[in-house]
């Protein structure tokens, strides 16, 4: 049924449709409305047989989810930004313990300086933590990806993070189609745990692993992630068959075939990019767009096959590794290492800076791109604030 809802409320409804037994989270902007939404659904029994546990921090939130999931129940949490950093030890534990928790990350910049607005710095800070990471382009996709996330997590025995752009999606009212409970139940049956702590049949999980075996444990985690590429694709296809919507999968391709220049990105900015590309193509240009749904595992082969015939690839990315440049663009370069495609990085939207269609079109049409461009950078501020540094002993020494 169609509704006009805030993204956070749509996500809360999707989570409730998946019938988690334990929800625990600590509020942080811009995740707060999601937390309030699921809390309300538990309180009014729209989501029954679920315990909403109030905790004192993000570290506790994910730790409680880990404990709950280890006893064999479906668990959910959500956070953003510094909240994710505060729980990071537990983030690694959840994947290391193979617990299929689902977490929403309402993407937000990381301070200092403090900034509550959207970018992908938080997601990038845990890109190597062993979670499956899916990025939503719209609120409909955010809703759909949560339903798929539980199925993927439980199949792969790996936690899944659904990344949703803070404010831009979480606080936006959009039209969403919410599936009926019965259909979600058919798609996502009750959770059958592969491991479950039980006082009557005691086992230990998370015991210390010595050098003789640790490498194998990590190798298996890697293999499960790479194998899950096929499962993520398959779950997306099953979802489409069941609900009629093409949500999920590994990558989303738009006007890619035969395109001279292909824009690659993550998350909601893909919508504005598609509008920009449509206008450019009407003017006789040749642009396509790839938005990556599954950032972890990274679908390098599909990306390579989609991009290898392009002349140029422009990676629009909302995170920065200081001293290096873009993060996603490095991974695209690696995927295309045996090709002659020119790859450039456009760092955009840091800390919630608006990304407009006009800015994107001007940027895409530039003839000579630097390896890294900062979209909309205020050069006058940089000129005023930056003094080139010299090593103190070098100048004037003989």
């Amino acid at each position, binding site marked *: 049924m*169609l509704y*006009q809802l*805030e993204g956070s409320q749509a996500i809360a409804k999707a989570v409730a449709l998946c019938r988690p037994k334990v929800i625990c989270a600590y509020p942080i902007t811009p995740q707060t409305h999601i937390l309030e939404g699921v809390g309300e659904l538990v309180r009014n029994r729209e989501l029954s047989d679920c315990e909403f546990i109030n905790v004192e921090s993000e570290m506790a939130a994910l730790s409680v989810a880990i404990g709950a999931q280890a006893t064999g129940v479906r668990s959910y949490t959500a956070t953003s930004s510094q909240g994710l950093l505060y729980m990071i030890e537990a983030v690694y534990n959840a994947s290391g313990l193979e617990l299929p928790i689902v977490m929403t990350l309402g993407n937000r910049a990381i301070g200092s300086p403090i900034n*509550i*607005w959207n970018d992908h710095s938080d997601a990038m800070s845990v890109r190597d933590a062993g979670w499956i990471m899916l990025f939503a382009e*719209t609120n409909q996709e955010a809703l759909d990806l949560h339903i798929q996330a539980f199925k993927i997590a439980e199949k792969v025995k790996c936690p899944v993070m659904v990344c949703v752009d803070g*404010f*831009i999606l979480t*606080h*936006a*009212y*959009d*039209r969403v189609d919410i599936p009926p409970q019965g259909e979600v139940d058919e798609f996502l049956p009750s959770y059958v745990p592969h491991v479950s702590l039980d006082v009557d049949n005691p086992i230990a999980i998370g015991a210390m692993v010595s050098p003789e075996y640790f490498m194998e444990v990590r190798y298996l985690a890697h293999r499960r992630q790479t194998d899950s590429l096929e499962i993520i694709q398959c779950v997306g296809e099953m979802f489409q068959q069941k609900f009629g919507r093409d949500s999920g999968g590994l990558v989303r391709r738009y006007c890619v075939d035969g395109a001279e220049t292909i824009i690659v990105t993550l998350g*909601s*900015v893909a*919508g*504005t990019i*598609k*509008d920009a590309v449509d206008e450019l193509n009407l003017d006789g240009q040749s642009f396509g767009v790839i938005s990556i749904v599954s950032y972890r595992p990274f679908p390098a082969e599909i990306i390579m096959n989609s991009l290898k015939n392009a002349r140029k690839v422009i990676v629009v990315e909302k995170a920065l590794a200081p001293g290096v440049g873009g993060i996603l663009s490095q991974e695209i370069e690696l995927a295309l290492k045996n090709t002659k495609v020119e790859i450039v990085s456009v760092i955009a939207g840091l800390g*919630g800076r*608006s*990304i*407009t*269609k006009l800015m994107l079109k001007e940027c895409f049409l530039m003839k000579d791109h630097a390896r890294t461009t900062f979209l909309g950078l205020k050069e006058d501020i940089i000129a005023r604030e930056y003094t080139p540094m010299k090593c103190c002993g070098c100048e004037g020494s003989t």
Partner: protein
Amino acid sequence: MFQIRVHGRGGQGVVTAAEMLSIAAFLEKKHAQAFPSFGSERMGAPVMAFCRISNKEIRLREPVLEPNALIIQDRTVIESSNAFQGVVENGFVLVNSSVEISNPVKNVNIKCIDATGIALEHVGRPIPNAVLLGSFAALTKIIKIDSVIEAIKTKFSGSIAEKNIKAAQIAYEETLKGI
């Protein structure tokens, strides 16, 4: 696509106004998107919210830069927020003001209405958002007053909803008379 920008101050229901507009458009089977200008959610601080209405799916996620209509809930933010910036030719400007304001932009349809006064009289609180939506329906004819009333019901309940609906209807009639 029809784009609306709402200006006002924290506590005046600026974000709720944009959300109710999107709900009204949704009820008319249109695609609609509403979102706030994010962040400064403090009482009294200048706030902006945006709404887009279209017959097809809306993919654009940038702020509304060239509004077809402006709703200004507090005329004291006009200068500091550069509220008239980008408004399109023959666009609509709806201002909550008990006095006429000088028209700083050529070729726009400007309408002043004492929405705070109407809200105080009929709702008992100086929250002008629902009142202005009634006036907006009459001025722009982009959405029907019946849809505005249904949208108000999704955000308010009981007697507060009834009072806001009455106030919106009064603003709707008053604006129709003035066109």
